């Protein structure tokens, strides 16, 4: 037990330092992004439409566009997105809604392909830990057990809760970097080491079954819980710039696996309607501003397709 005499005060001290550093509303962008969500969430009771997911799921769905499409007034739409909020974070929000006994007529959840392979980013863990009601921790850990590295995920969840700092590290580093070293120009940064700019690489989910097992398990749990909260659930498959590279067999196979997995999830849940925006909508690099978020042209294409698909599904 003498070991704990060292470990516990160290963890407490880490927690204290973190309180000083990242709870002052000026540092800790990742936390502050959630404060925006908190504000919208607590103000908005009795809404009928729930928008959930990351920024890519909602930044093309402004209330002024969506409200007339669904035939509801703008204040009826609750935008519960959080930047970078993937399935586990969305699940935490849904568990919270269940705890507060909220009810909706329609819930719209957008998922990206690249999200399927990204489950250990410190930001995701911060969001999950912050938003998940304590009583649902065992549920989250059980879902993490379906992932590639359950111990790692559990450790991060624990580490984040105890030290509080884990999820903010990348942000604090980048802030300090900017303050100490000046802002970084990603387009010029290579010049110190090479005469030729290296090719750009973007995150790509290879859709290997082991890598996506956790995310599909969370999506399934998320849809089931949403089904309890909402009369109807719309699961939207969002496009990204990798759709312009379908000639590459690995990209093609990844997209096909992504669609098939979500079709299966929707087919086994009668309350879920799948809207696949990855087939005929935005797909060219010009349709995206950074590979994932849509450009003006991409937004226009996506809104048109969404409206058509919604009508075809009888939800308009």
């Amino acid at each position, binding site marked *: *037990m*003498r*070991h*704990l005499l*060292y*470990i516990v*005060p*160290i963890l407490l*001290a*880490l927690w204290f*330092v973190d309180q000083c550093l990242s709870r002052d509303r000026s540092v800790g962008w990742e936390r502050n992004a959630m404060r925006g969500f908190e504000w919208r969430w607590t103000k908005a009771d009795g809404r009928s439409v729930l928008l959930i997911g990351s920024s890519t799921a909602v930044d093309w769905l402004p209330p002024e566009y969506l409200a007339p499409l669904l035939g509801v007034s703008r204040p009826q739409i609750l935008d519960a997105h959080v930047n970078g909020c993937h399935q586990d974070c969305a699940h935490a929000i849904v568990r919270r809604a269940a705890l507060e006994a909220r009810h909706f007529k329609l819930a719209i959840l957008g998922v990206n392909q690249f999200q399927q392979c990204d489950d250990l*980013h*410190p930001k995701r863990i911060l969001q999950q830990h912050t938003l998940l009601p304590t009583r649902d921790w065992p549920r989250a850990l059980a879902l993490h057990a379906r992932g590639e*590295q359950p*111990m*790692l995920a*559990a*450790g*991060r969840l*624990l*580490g984040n809760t105890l*030290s509080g*700092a*884990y999820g903010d*590290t*990348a942000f*604090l*580093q980048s802030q300090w*970097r900017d303050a*100490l*070293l*000046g*802002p*970084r*120009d990603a387009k*010029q*940064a*290579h*010049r*110190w*080491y*090479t*005469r*030729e700019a*290296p090719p750009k690489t973007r995150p790509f989910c290879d859709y290997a079954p082991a890598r996506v097992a956790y995310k599909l398990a969370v999506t399934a749990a998320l849809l089931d819980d949403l089904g309890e909260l909402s009369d109807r659930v719309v699961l939207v498959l969002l496009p990204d710039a990798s759709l312009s590279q379908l000639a590459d067999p690995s990209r093609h196979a990844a997209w096909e696996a992504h669609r098939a997995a979500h079709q299966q999830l929707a087919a086994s849940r009668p309350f879920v309607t799948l809207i696949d925006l990855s087939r005929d909508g935005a797909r060219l690099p010009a349709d995206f501003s950074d590979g994932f978020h849509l450009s003006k042209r991409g937004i226009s294409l996506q809104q048109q397709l969404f409206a058509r698909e919604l009508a075809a599904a009888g939800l308009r």
Partner: protein
Amino acid sequence: MSFTSPAFVVFFLLFFWLWPSLRGRPRQLFLLAASYLFYASWSAPLLLLLLGSTLLDFSVARAIGRSDDPTRRRQLLGLSLLGNLGVLACFKYYNFFADSAAAGLHALGLEVSAPTLAIVLPVGISFYTFQTLGYTIDVYRRNLAPCASPLDFALYVAFFPQLVAGPIERAGHLLPQLRALSSADPPRPDLSGFGLIALGAFKKVVIADNLAPIVDAVYADPAHAWAPALWFATYAFAFQIYCDFSGYSDIAVGVARLMGVSLTQNFRAPYAALGPADFWRRWHISLSAWLRDYLYLPLGGNRSGRWRTARNLLLTMLLGGLWHGAAWHFVLWGAYHGLLLVIFRAGFWDRLNTRLPLRPLVSLIRWFVFFHLVCLGWALFRAPTLGDCQVILAKLLDPRGWQLGAWLGEVEASGEGRLLALWALVMAMLLLVQALGRVGSEVWVARMWRAPPALRFLLLVALFYACVLLAPEAPQPFIYFQF
């Protein structure tokens, strides 16, 4: 489950929560189960290989101990060598030798497609194989009595703090300590282990992992890299690999200390070395001592004349290089260090001090020159392929292509100048600490542990918090795990 992963934090907390409450055999059984769990977190099927190696060397050593017939003893030792080196040859070197043979035949005009094996390199195989092999050789030489308890021996092979990347422990040093864990009066935990863990984690997470992207960027495409950038990345790699590997060793030694077990010191300020022999007494000490005792000395060491000594040194270092990885650039790195040892053995280097009056200045020059020779070796070690070694050395060693002024202009335009200056400063400080201190982490931590408790605690918190806060977003695996 890397030492610097949150998963290990959970494992560590659970382990040390239960550890103090156990006594006797259950304590050893618990440690063994934890060690196997630790190894299985990488690959459960490959645990069978570890068990096989344990069983083989335990049985062979017992049989050697029982026999007085020299022929039978030799045969049994041969069996152990065949088993251990066979596993290494199969899992680590088969594809390398098959590809090399095919390439050699291709050069002679013969087209042969060598069959390759689609197998994963078992983590830590080079470490635990050498450890068990060392034990059997010690028993064969009658330096050690064979271990009577399978549990003690299984623990000696699988002891989790040093299982996957050393230090490579001698049975005579580790086995009695592991045996003592089940005694009525087990060894008391040494809490200075926390200091070593914190320092090791700091070295790995804050220094090595943040230097990694700088090194990787340059070495990804050395042909198009600026020559001064290649020098900078080579210096960075020298500190990355030191902080990565010695950081791991510090954590291993620290965790073992919390159980009351003392592991071998693996590093002692290697960049303070004034020559190659001095360097190998400071770098990866447990491996160089193993190679000395089980390879170099049996080959004849330095007792059979100058040429045989040179041959023995070269052979030992070639195999040392190959031990690091199944690739020709590792062999080249080993050969390079072998050549350095042979050349420096001629004695001119050591005579410099006595022949010249300005001894401190000469020592400084010796240190500076030798540090750069080590860095050139690291360039060979880090090169992606053997072909790249030639490009890299040509760029590093040809001052006409350095274009320092043009490069500084590019650094300015890239906006990374201050970051590089910051890292240059950090590396210079690390070098200075090693050159002046000339001692390893254990000594620094012992000094830290002599400080007043409040200061000691603050230092620990600062080190841990720096790890949490300054860790790069993408954690890097330990470099030596691949060996």
